Structure formats: structure tokens, C-alpha cells
């Protein structure tokens, strides 16, 4: 009797996490509060049990996340007794950067990409776990599990280290770092199945509920606080919606849905006809946009 595909994926992810713990001096887990991060954290708890994961969690807070995400994050870290680091790009805050005033590209660059680089440099992390998967996007399909970053946090797709078997080369020089993707070989379906099987807690934003929303450029945007600029006379409307991915609320489109349980969500996800990242404003540029962003240091 051999292992099922989920058991094999789980074992592979655990192996990767232990390798980082054994070989890297100062690792960190990038925790973004979404479902993939939830699975990654769950795997970390399994990998080191009965020890706690031997690294802190780092959340790069753009100050535009859904309020519920922040509550969920703080609760979870407290319940599990894990060290949680939160980093905000204070230069961006002073400048007043936000998606409504500066556009999604600039906002994402300053509050996410630059902020992440700041945090990695500040704490001198030599390895950072990320929850990205190869099935998400074409340029990710070729990225290594242990992905080398220069001292400037750049990714060079043409100069990647060969990665054979489950033997990972973690050697770097001073100032350089690795991004490590333990869930590289998972697909979206695997993630949902695993959440279902392992009963993993995810933010309720994934579940449909009545929420106040407005429409912007064809996207349904939740009015999560009073920073949403409303047209004269415009009123948010209550709609039964949920979110397929979680990010900055002004950049994350909701979908109308009646899915209020996990099986409902999975059912809806499987029957849907557009891919997961479609709700994100960031991917709408040219085909190679993600590859370009990654070279610049976007996770």
C-alpha cells in the first residue's frame, strides 16, 4: 500500500521545512494570512512536532489588508504561541501611499515588494518560506523550491541552480538569501482538499456573507473601512459575497456566492470557469508581468 498524493505532498513539504531548519542560520516564514499560508503554517506545526517551528512568522502589512485578516493573524499567533513579526513600510505610510491614490502597481511595489525587502534586510533573514505554488502562474512553473536571491533580493531566472532529487543546496554567501517554497508541487485543488481533510482554520472572508460592497472597474470591492472614495451619492450595497484570494481589500475582487461551508466553497471553486488569480489586479498587465515583478523582488 503506497501513500496517497496528499500524503506524499505533505511529506515532501515537511522534508523541505526541516532542511531549512537544519541548514539555515536565520529562517523566517512569510505569513500572508491566506489559505495557502494557513496550510503552510499547518505543515510547519507538523514538521517539527513536538517542538514548535524554530522560526518566527513575518507578515508584511500594507495597511490595506482586510480588518478581519489582521484579527485572524493576531489570534492565531497568540493561540499557537508563535513569534509574529509585523513589518510596515513606514516611508510609504508617511508618503500616504495607497491603492486608491497611487494605483495598484505603485502601491504594491512600495508597500509590499519594498516593504518585504526592508524586513528581510532589517532582520538579516537568510531563508524565507513562501506559500507560492508552481501551478499559479507560468513563470512560477520554472522556479526552484530553494530559490536563490542576490544581496539585492533579485531573482535571476536564467541562472538558477539545478535542483535534483530531494537534495537541496542551501549554501549562500553573506548578504544573499533563499526563498523557499515548500508547497511548490501543490495545486489549488490539493490545498482545498487538504484544508478539508485536516480541518484547517481559514479566515471567514473565504465564506460567503452579506458584506457592504461597491463596484470599481468591473470588480466588486468590499468597503472594509472609510478609506474607499465614494462617488457623490454613491452608497455601498449589501451583497452575499466571498473572496477567492485575500490581499489588500481595494485590490481584491469579491465574487457573488452562496457558499457558506467549506464543501460549498470547494464545490464552487471546482465548478468555476476562471482561474484563481483573476481576482487580483496585479496580474492584468502583460503576460510576463509576474516574471518581471519576481526579478525585482516581489515574492
Amino acid at each position: 500500500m503506497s501513500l496517497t498524493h496528499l500524503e506524499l505532498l505533505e511529506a515532501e513539504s515537511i522534508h523541505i521545512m526541516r532542511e531549512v531548519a537544519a541548514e539555515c542560520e536565520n529562517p523566517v516564514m512569510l505569513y500572508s494570512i491566506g489559505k495557502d499560508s494557513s496550510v503552510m503554517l499547518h505543515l510547519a506545526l507538523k514538521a517539527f512536532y513536538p517542538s514548535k517551528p524554530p522560526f518566527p512568522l513575518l507578515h508584511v502589512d500594507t495597511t490595506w489588508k482586510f480588518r478581519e485578516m489582521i484579527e485572524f493573524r493576531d489570534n492565531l499567533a497568540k493561540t499557537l504561541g508563535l513569534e509574529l513579526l509585523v513589518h510596515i513600510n513606514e516611508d510609504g505610510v508617511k508618503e500616504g501611499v495607497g491603492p486608491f491614490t497611487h494605483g495598484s502597481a505603485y502601491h504594491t511595489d512600495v508597500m509590499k515588494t519594498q516593504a518585504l525587502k526592508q524586513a528581510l534586510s532589517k532582520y538579516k533573514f537568510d531563508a524565507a518560506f513562501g506559500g507560492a505554488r508552481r501551478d499559479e502562474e507560468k513563470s512560477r512553473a520554472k522556479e526552484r523550491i530553494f530559490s536563490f536571491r542576490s544581496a539585492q533580493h533579485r531573482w535571476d531566472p536564467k541562472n538558477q541552480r539545478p535542483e535534483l532529487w530531494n537534495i537541496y543546496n542551501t549554501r549562500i554567501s553573506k548578504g544573499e538569501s533563499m526563498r523557499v517554497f515548500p508547497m511548490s508541487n501543490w495545486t489549488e485543488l490539493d490545498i482545498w482538499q487538504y484544508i478539508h481533510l485536516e480541518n484547517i482554520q481559514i479566515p471567514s472572508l473565504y465564506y460567503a456573507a452579506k458584506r457592504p460592497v461597491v463596484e470599481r472597474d468591473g470588480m466588486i470591492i468590499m468597503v472594509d473601512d472609510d478609506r474607499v472614495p465614494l462617488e457623490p451619492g454613491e452608497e455601498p450595497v449589501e451583497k452575499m459575497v466571498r473572496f477567492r484570494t485575500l490581499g489588500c481589500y481595494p485590490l481584491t475582487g469579491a465574487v457573488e456566492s452562496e457558499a457558506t461551508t467549506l464543501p460549498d466553497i470547494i464545490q464552487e471553486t471546482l465548478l468555476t470557469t476562471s482561474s484563481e488569480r483573476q481576482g487580483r489586479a496585479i496580474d492584468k498587465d502583460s503576460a510576463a508581468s509576474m516574471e518581471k515583478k519576481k526579478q525585482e523582488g516581489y515574492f
Partner: protein
Amino acid sequence: MSHQDNLIAEDILAYLEAQRNKSYLRCLTCGSVDDGKSTLIGRLLFDSKMIYEDQLSALENDSKKSGTQGEKIDLALLVDGLAAEREQGITIDVAYRFFSTDKRKFIIADTPGHIQYTRNMATGASTADLAIILIDARRGVLDQTRRHSYIASLLGIRNIVVAVNKMDLVEFSQHKFNEIEEEYRGFAEKLDFKEIVCIPMSALDGDNVMNRSERCKWYKGKSLMEHLETVDISQEVTQTSFRMPVQWVNRPNLDFRGYSGTIAAGQVKPGDEIIVIPSGKRSVVDKIVIRDGDLYQAEVNESVTITLRDEIDISRGDIICSTDDPAEQSDQFQANIIWMDEEAMFPGRQYIMKINNQTVPATVTDLKYKVNVNNFAHEAGKSLALNEVGVCNLSLGKPIPFDSYKKNRHTGAFILIDRQTNATIGAGMLDYSLRRAANVVWQDLEVGKVERANLKHQKPAVLWFTGLSGSGKSTIAGLLEKKLFDIGRHTYVLDGDNVRHGLNKDLGFTDADRVENIRRVAETSRLMVEAGLMVMVSFISPFRSERQMARNLMEDGEFIEVFVNTPLDVAEQRDVKGLYKKAREGKIKNFTGIDSPYEAPENPDIVVDTVDKTPEKAVEQILAYLEENGYLSAS
């Protein structure tokens, strides 16, 4: 994503239950763009409905912009990911693709087929259980078909699918297909495959990809997908006795000591007797701990934490084995190596090996032969270039536990890492131990290095002078020896020219010979240090890695790197021996500084500047260093 739409819509829980028991198959596709490899993968994704509507509309746009199929959708564009590849229209790296059916989840490693990408194919093959080898029906078996098959076999893939593609362009000729199948099976006999299945198909039109084709009714076998869904790969791990390389020692508090790792073969239960290799210590498994509770049993590929009944010393890199048929240990091996770096591999050069969760220094002591991957012929050679495969002897810095790769793909595999750049530069598979390291014990001499040095009242060391020809190395070394001799030190000078007339007179000036030249000098100087001498080595020694290798032979503090820093133009102007002139005229080949590189030391212990400084002043500088660092105090 809409396979099994009905069940998903009607009973999602039943669907989820059915999905949880899916098995997992990792495959490799090899073939060139012209064979339609990307098209085949695109077809598999497309036909198993793993493509969403928005991706499909993006694909239609891309097809119009840069497609090669006219008005048809170019499925290859789905998988050619990186921007550079789209521009060049070729696949240059390994990409991983995912799809699933009701029975199995699949990962396909999509690798390029050209000879310059052997390393990428080997990378994809290392984690695959099955290889799909594409052949263009019009062109038949080519050199590249043999190359792909050889690499698949070398990396331990036992199941092969020969996809004879573009059958639509040969009118689905049964005769043509049979001819190709016969030729393939003919040469594949020399390789180590368990099962070969040949399928006629057209990836472009979908014939025999998901469903059996109406256009070649003479073919009675399965479609590609039918085969992939049912092929039995449970025999892939042939070894059945338990072993788990220890990855991480789990020590949350004083009361718990567990050993975490991924099981590389067999199964384990509480109460099983185990032996730890290389220490040979024995104990009994107490518990198999996971977060959901203790396990009754665990098997190959599971990542677990094991506790033992006895407190014995176990570290990362040890292998916990069943007491019957445990792993072997050795520090001398024969291995197959695939070279993956622009800079060639040279015997004598030292690398870092990572194997079974540990890193050890490794030196290739001999390149026995290179393998021509196109026709499997053995060829002589002094070095392995990028994408070349060779059979080598290896010597490690310490004994390690292992199995032969043929027995176990997990515990017999290794990678080689460059000491300077940290790049992964080679991958290898252990064949067998050249000796039982356990049987070879260093001669325990009663008179040792310390005793000899004490008798001479000195602290032995090597002063390694490196620098361009004409920089003044030998002059300074000679003067320094005189000074040391005058104060009663026992010394010796190993000089490039002198050694080349004797010990190394069989060596030339190719990169491979330069490496061997330095290796012999380094070993000689080590013996002299053991004899208690202060040794001055005066060699151009242009490569950092060889100087590092020499340093690694000595104990800490025994190796002093002296960089005699003279710019090329100054050395060339001096040209004491007239060598630069000859090199410039092309009468001497591979001359350092002219047509062979000099890699200046990055962190030398002493830098001597001979532009503004006389040799006498340089000697004073070195003596001051020796004094400050305690080399002259013992007397």
C-alpha cells in the same frame, strides 16, 4: 477544472472522499520542440480540462501574436513560460506541470531536448518515475532519442513511454510505427528499463492522447492517458529494508529526543531493532511520533520523527537502518557524474558533496572514462565539460553511510557544490565503494607530527607563494629560507621549475595538468609539514580552488597564503626568463596572464607588493608576520 462535473455538482462530499485516495505519478517528457513536446503537454492540460476560460482567452490572444499554428490555438504557448523562451520559441529550463484525473494526480517535468540541456533533463529525471520520450514519426529514432533514453536510464527511471508523434503526417502508417518501435527496442536492450510502451499519436489533433484514435484502428494498445492512469510504479523502490537518513534532531525539552527524517526505504514499527550507520550503535524503536498521535507503522516516503529506547548519540547525516541489510559506509567510491557547470570538472580539484543530509569535502581522484550520451560509447578524457557524463572515482573527507543508486535512488544520490560560488555544479549516483573504509585505518605512528616538531623546536607550516610568473616569488622564498636557516629553522623550498623537472615532469600546462601539478605539490608539502619542516612553496598556482584544496589538506594555522602581487604589465616588463615574449609570440600556450587566467586570492594571509618594495623588504614583512603569529616563538 471541470472533470467529474456531475459528481462535484451533485455530491461534493462524495467527490472529496473519492479524491482523497488518488495516487501520484511523476513523469518526465523529453523531446525537442520540433517533436511537439510542449504541444503534447498543452494537449494533456487542455483535454483533462485543467485550463480555465480566462487562460484560454489569453491563449487565443497569444496564439494570434506569436503562435506557430496559424488560426489554430497553439497549445505549446500554454507551457513555454519564461519571457526569453517565448521570444526564442524554445524551452530552455525545467518546468513543472500539474494535472489530475479521477484516478491520479500527475506532475510532469517538462525538459528541453537539445544536447546542451542534458543537465536540465537529468534534473527533471531525478524525481520522475516514468519518462515519455517523443519521436517525430517522420524522422524516427535519432541521436537525441538515444540520449534521452540513456539519461532516463542513468537516473533510474524504469518505465518508458515512447510517444511516436505526428502520426497524422505519415498517414498513421502502421509500417512506419512498427519500424520505429523495433529500432527503439533494439538499442534500449542495453539500458536498464523494466517496461517500454510505444504509442502512435498526434498531439496536435489529440489522437491516442486521452482517447484511442479512430484514425489508427490497427493500434490495439492503450491511449497515453489510459496508460499513465494505470501504470504500476510501486516497484520503483526495490529496496525493502528500512532506512531513514536523519535530517533534524528534535529536542523540544530535556525529556524528549527524537530523530526527524524522511523514510528512504522499507517500513518501521515500534519495537523494531535498528542500527545507526556509521557509528554502528544499536537500539530499538520506541515511538513513531507525528502531530496527530503516535503511529503504529510508517513506510517509505513518509516524513516522521522516531524515538529510541536507548540514549545514543545520533546526528544529522547518520542513517537509522534495520539491523538486517543496513546501509554501507565508505569514503572511496566509483560514481556516475553529470557535470552541470560552465567551468569543467578536473580530477584533483576539491568540491563539496551533499548526500543524505550532510556535506563533506569530495575530490574526484580519477576520471575513468566519459560516456558519449548519443551512442553510449566510452571515451577517454581528462576533464568533464558542461553536460558531459563520466564515470569517476571519488575520495571523501570522511566516511559516509550510503547505498548504491541502483539499490536506492534516495540514499545513493548526491550533488556537488562549488566551494567559491556555492553553485550546484554536478550531480552523481554512487555505484559502489572502492574499499571498505572501516578496514583501512591510518597507521598510528608512535612518532607523530607534534613529536617531530618539538624535537626541532619549531612550529611547522607551509608558506604558499602565489603570483604571476616574474612576480618574484622564488627570489623572496629563497631569501626567506636563508633568513630562517640563519635563525636555526629547518626549512625546504618547493619551487615550480624544480618540481616540474622531477616529480611532475610528466605534466603539461593544460588546466587538468595544472590541477594535478598543484595537487602533488600540496600533498608533498603536507608530508613535509608532518615531518616538522617550514616549507616554502613557490608556484604560480593560478586557480583559487587548488589553493583552497592545499589549504584544506593542512590543519588550521599550518597554511599561510602569500600573495606576491605584481601587476601583469610590471611582470611582463621584467620578463626575467623571456617567457612573456614567447607567450605573446604564441610560442608558449596556456601561459598564465596571457592566454590562461590568474585568479588572485580573495583573502590572502600576507600580500607582498613587489612594485615599490625590494625582495629584502618583502622578507622582513613576512618575518614580522611569522613573529606576530607565533611561528618563531617556539624554540
